[in-house]
């Protein structure tokens, strides 16, 4: 009896905390999104918040902005991170192991930087009077502040994309580099015997090895960007805003009537991340990403 119930007892505190604080919160929010507010004697469940939300333009614009920003920044982070991983790997091959390890650690630095700071760095560098604009003016490419494109607090979301790319490149690197590091030196020698140069070695051996976990890494970055708050709050515009910011604006707008709508945005957001998460989980199990190739 004891042996049988032991794992459940061991799991009880942790799962209890998550069920109570996390799923309890989700459920609480879902009830309130359906108009259940016992405090003001509202006990009738209805879908008003959802129908109103789905028929408003601001929700759809918010959703399309969110998808666009998440897609572009995850792809950019994936491309830069993937190339960086290959470059570091090739350098590692040239026997400068120590140097490449130091570089790898330095490139990991943005991972530890809080989101708000990452957002502010983008403001300093990319606003119209920012450092890059100053640089372009000094070398004579632009003449006026207004010649520099609006990249911060712009409706397209470039500032958010830049911030997320900067923050997530190290994450992609962290996910794919360990796989490349397992390629043995002898493989490279063998490939050279068969006449493979650097490029064909990358194309035929390095890329196929890192592909599955690269795709999963890009996908995770996509989901993270999808549910991001701090960076779009700092670098976005008030309208259209990304879904989490949109929900926050509705929640803080002051009127109690907007709260069910804010919570409805949250529930939709949660459902989308669950679906995306399940897809990522399915493929990572199928491709054995965590264990890697044998």
């Amino acid at each position, binding site marked *: 009896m004891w042996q049988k119930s*032991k*794992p459940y007892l*061991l*799991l009880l*505190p*942790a*799962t209890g*905390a*998550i*069920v109570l*604080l*996390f*799923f*309890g*919160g*989700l459920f*609480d*929010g879902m009830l*309130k999104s359906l108009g259940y507010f016992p405090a003001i004697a509202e006990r009738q469940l209805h879908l008003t918040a959802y129908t109103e939300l789905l028929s408003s333009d601001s929700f759809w614009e918010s959703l399309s902005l969110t998808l666009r920003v998440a897609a572009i920044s995850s792809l950019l982070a994936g491309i830069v991170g993937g190339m*960086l991983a290959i*470059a*570091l790997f*090739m*350098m590692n091959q*040239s026997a400068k192991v120590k140097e490449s390890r130091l*570089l790898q650690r*330095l*490139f990991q*630095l*943005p991972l530890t*930087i*809080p*989101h*708000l*700071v990452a957002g*502010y*760095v983008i403001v*300093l*560098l990319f606003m119209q*009077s920012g*450092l890059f*604009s*100053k640089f372009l003016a*000094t070398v004579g490419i632009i003449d006026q*502040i207004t010649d520099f494109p609006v990249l911060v607090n712009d409706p397209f979301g470039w500032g958010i994309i830049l911030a997320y790319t900067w923050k997530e490149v190290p994450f992609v690197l962290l996910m794919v580099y360990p796989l490349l590091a397992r390629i043995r030196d002898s493989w490279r020698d063998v490939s050279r015997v068969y006449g493979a140069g*650097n490029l064909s070695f990358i194309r035929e051996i390095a890329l196929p090895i890192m592909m599955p976990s690269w795709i999963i890494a890009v996908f995770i970055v996509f*989901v993270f960007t999808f*549910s991001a*708050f*701090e960076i779009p709050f700092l670098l976005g515009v008030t309208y259209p805003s990304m879904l*989490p910011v949109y*929900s926050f604006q509705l*929640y803080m707008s002051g009127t109690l009537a907007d709260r069910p709508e804010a919570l409805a945005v*949250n*529930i939709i*957001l*949660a459902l989308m*991340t669950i679906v995306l*998460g399940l897809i*990522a989980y399915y493929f990572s199990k199928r491709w054995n990403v965590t264990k890697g190739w044998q």
Partner: protein
Amino acid sequence: MRQVFTPLKNILSLLLVLFIAIPFIALMLSSVATGWQWPELLPESYSFRAWEYVLFSSSRTWQSIGTSLLIAVIVTVINVLLAVPAANALVRFQFKGKWFAEAILFAPIIIPPFVAVMGIHLTFLRLGLTETILGVVLAHLSPTLPYMVGAVMISYSTLSVDWENQARMLGAGPFVRFYYVVLPHLLPGIAAGASLSILISLSQYLITFIIGSGQVVTLPILLFPFISGGDPAVASAYSLLFAGMAILALLAMDAALKKYYQTKNPSVLKVKGVKR
């Protein structure tokens, strides 16, 4: 081969400058600049006015750092206590519903935790947990606990039951076994989990804002008005301080772990060395 790798190294160095050095240089210059007009690449004059304000004249800085660290440490201690038994169950036992327990524990990684926090806000308000450190600590648990569980699980998966059985044969009770056999093996995992937990807790803005309602002032709460359109020098100084606090917390954790192995358990270091 050398001619291939020299351009590669140049590209990497260029990327390093672009990605890592320029952002930090920009923050540093901006924090000591006075009157940095547009086409000038460097500030006209420098002063430590912003740093003086941040570090000395505003007592709120140190209070907010204290609050941030206090919350992060409490959250991390609770996480360790919750995660160690859970990881033990998930790694060492086969039982019905295991996938379900894993799904519950790892859900907050994918589903954004602020969704749950906004949902629970009114309930916390009724229970008197808003505007309190305890409320913020409870709100920080779900974004951090999954990472702690994951890190400790990795440690458990490399610990053979044989070690404990051997200790049992030598007459060690469950607590002695845990303290002398299991815990030293788990420590690197716990330290890795604690680093993540501290880092995530320190950088929370939205969750702290909703539950703390502006009354629990952590560093990100104090910093936000400055970086969204305040004095750029002060904003830059605060940003550097904030990033520095996160990095320092990680380094301290790393150093503490190294020290533990040197003073308490020199043999572990050797074993580790052999493996590599």
